[in-house]
């Protein structure tokens, strides 16, 4: 009996952790590339879930295709944001960008609340039931989240590691001037970064939609956890974002099951302590 609970808790932790990994990767990507603290990422995640809901429950598009459409759509939204929103905000002060994205997030959240109402909506899970592997019982809906999230993460990893443009993006996040000097087009890498970051966060929202209720309030807590993950893993570090997400996901899953509501307090205190000891994060470097 207890082993079933343990496996369930691990599975929940992995599923939530990978979702956090995705949002944190998106946040890290934009920060590393453009130096912008993109606080509207929680709302992008929410939009991912809501577009998936509207397509799936409203129009009847199959779930996977709905997720794919919302992912792509949010990616294009990201490119538009970079071109027509942040581009016109010429400022030396990084706080200006941070507050512009905060305000953008509030605007999106407000509009969604007006259109969508306060009531949470549920999406029918695309797969249901359990998988029994040698006595280990795994629920299929969480497995699906884990598999797709892992696919996205490995795609991103391979993309950054082996393709020319992926390496260009990494070069820009290391040294913008030097990268430009050797012929990297900053405009196109920035646009691509925003595309990747927003579609990753949107995909996270689409994936989470069948597990929880979809509503306008899901952005805030996710952004909070994402910030913690990003800071724990190290700002701008892809590996840090992924491992930080998994760590926080598992800690929260075990914590909520065995410790209770005080768990979120413990998470924040751990974050503060890590930051005090190692301000650059566990995987980051100065």
């Amino acid at each position, binding site marked *: 009996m207890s082993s079933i609970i343990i496996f369930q808790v691990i599975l929940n932790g992995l599923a939530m952790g990978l979702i956090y990994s995705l949002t944190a990767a998106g946040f890290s990507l934009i*920060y590393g590339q453009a130096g912008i*603290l993109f606080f509207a990422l929680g709302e992008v995640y929410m939009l991912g879930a809501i577009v998936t809901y509207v397509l799936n429950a409203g129009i009847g598009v199959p779930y996977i295709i709905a997720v794919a459409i919302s992912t792509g759509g949010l990616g294009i939204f990201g490119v538009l944001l970079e071109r027509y929103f942040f581009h*016109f*905000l010429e*400022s030396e002060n*990084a*706080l*200006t960008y*941070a*507050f*512009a994205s*905060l*305000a*953008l*997030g*509030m*605007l999106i*959240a*407000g*509009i969604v*609340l*007006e259109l969508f109402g306060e009531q949470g909506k549920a999406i029918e899970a695309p797969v249901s039931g359990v998988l029994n592997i040698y006595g280990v019982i795994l629920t299929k809906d969480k497995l699906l989240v884990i598999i797709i999230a892992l696919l996205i993460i490995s795609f991103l990893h391979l993309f950054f590691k082996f393709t020319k443009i992926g390496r260009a993006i990494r070069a820009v996040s290391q040294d913008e001037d030097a990268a430009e000097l050797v012929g990297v087009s900053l405009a196109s890498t920035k646009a691509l970064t925003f595309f990747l970051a927003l579609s990753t966060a949107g995909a996270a929202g689409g994936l989470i939609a069948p597990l929880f209720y979809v509503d306008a309030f899901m952005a*805030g807590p996710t952004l*909070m956890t994402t*910030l*913690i993950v*990003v*800071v724990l893993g190290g*700002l701008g570090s892809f590996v840090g974002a992924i491992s930080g997400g998994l760590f926080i996901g598992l800690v929260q899953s075990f914590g909520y099951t065995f410790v209770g*509501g*005080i768990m*979120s*307090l413990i998470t*924040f*205190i751990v*974050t*503060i302590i890590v*930051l*005090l000891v190692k*301000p*650059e*994060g566990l995987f980051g470097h100065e």
Partner: protein
Amino acid sequence: MNKIGNPKILFGICLAVILVAVPPFIKNEFVLNILIFIGINAILAMTNNLILRTGIWFMGHVAFYAIGAYAVLVGTRYLNLSYWVIFPIAGVLAGLMALVFGYVTRKVKGIPFAILSVALVEVVRLTIVTCMSGKPISCPSPDAILFWDFSEKIHYYYFVFLLAGLVLFFMHKVEKSRIGREINGIKENEEVAESLGINTGCFKVIILGICCGVAGLAGAVFAPYAKIVGHTSFTLTRSIIIIIYAIVGGSDSLWGPVIGAAFLTILPEILPGQASLQNIVYASAVLICLFFLPGGLVTLSGFFQDRRRPVEGA
């Protein structure tokens, strides 16, 4: 020069006279309520703006506001202390906690500090939820001073008005003093400021301590005024909106945070529609300001721009 002839001082005096003389004739509780909240918000916006101007990415003002409010709540309700004893204690307590926070985190800068202060807001809020069972608790009224018994809103109004006026005066003094120049120096270039003999680390911690102490006092006023205090008043959103007041009003000016607080406190109230429109209003105001009025609402009129503009291209 004749000081009274100075239009800025004249304006200040006129405003003060209007704000003192008119409210007793306002019989509308709704209007008074807005005025009181403008006062509280202006105090928070001014002090938080001073911290931000020192180059600290501080987003946790509401944590110390909450500490002040709950100090009063615990002191008057559970320890049966007089409000006038606990009021200064609340400010000192919030200030001391800010000093400790500033000292412990002195090595963390920039974005990690911003996130640290965000985490602090949540830690304080969740501690309140954990220790106070998460339910709103009623806070007793302050004890009467002569006929001044805080039974009506107008009594709170004068109290808040006095406090906000003092904070504004303090900000004005800081601006004109050597400290103000040092703050500008640290903001422009911290290394240069340090090389000129300003102990920037110590300076920042002290500014943090004083400003958060004042935020604690604001919380100490808020608690008895609100009568029922719950953790929902002290969320991260509130903390962010405090910064937004200063940005919308103009963070480089003395009057900016006050004007921003007044504007953004009134705006959602006079607009039709329900409370959920509030965030849309705030967000639109901020975006319009950031894109079209980078200096805030104060730049609409040259009258309020009393502060040196930063050197272009510096």
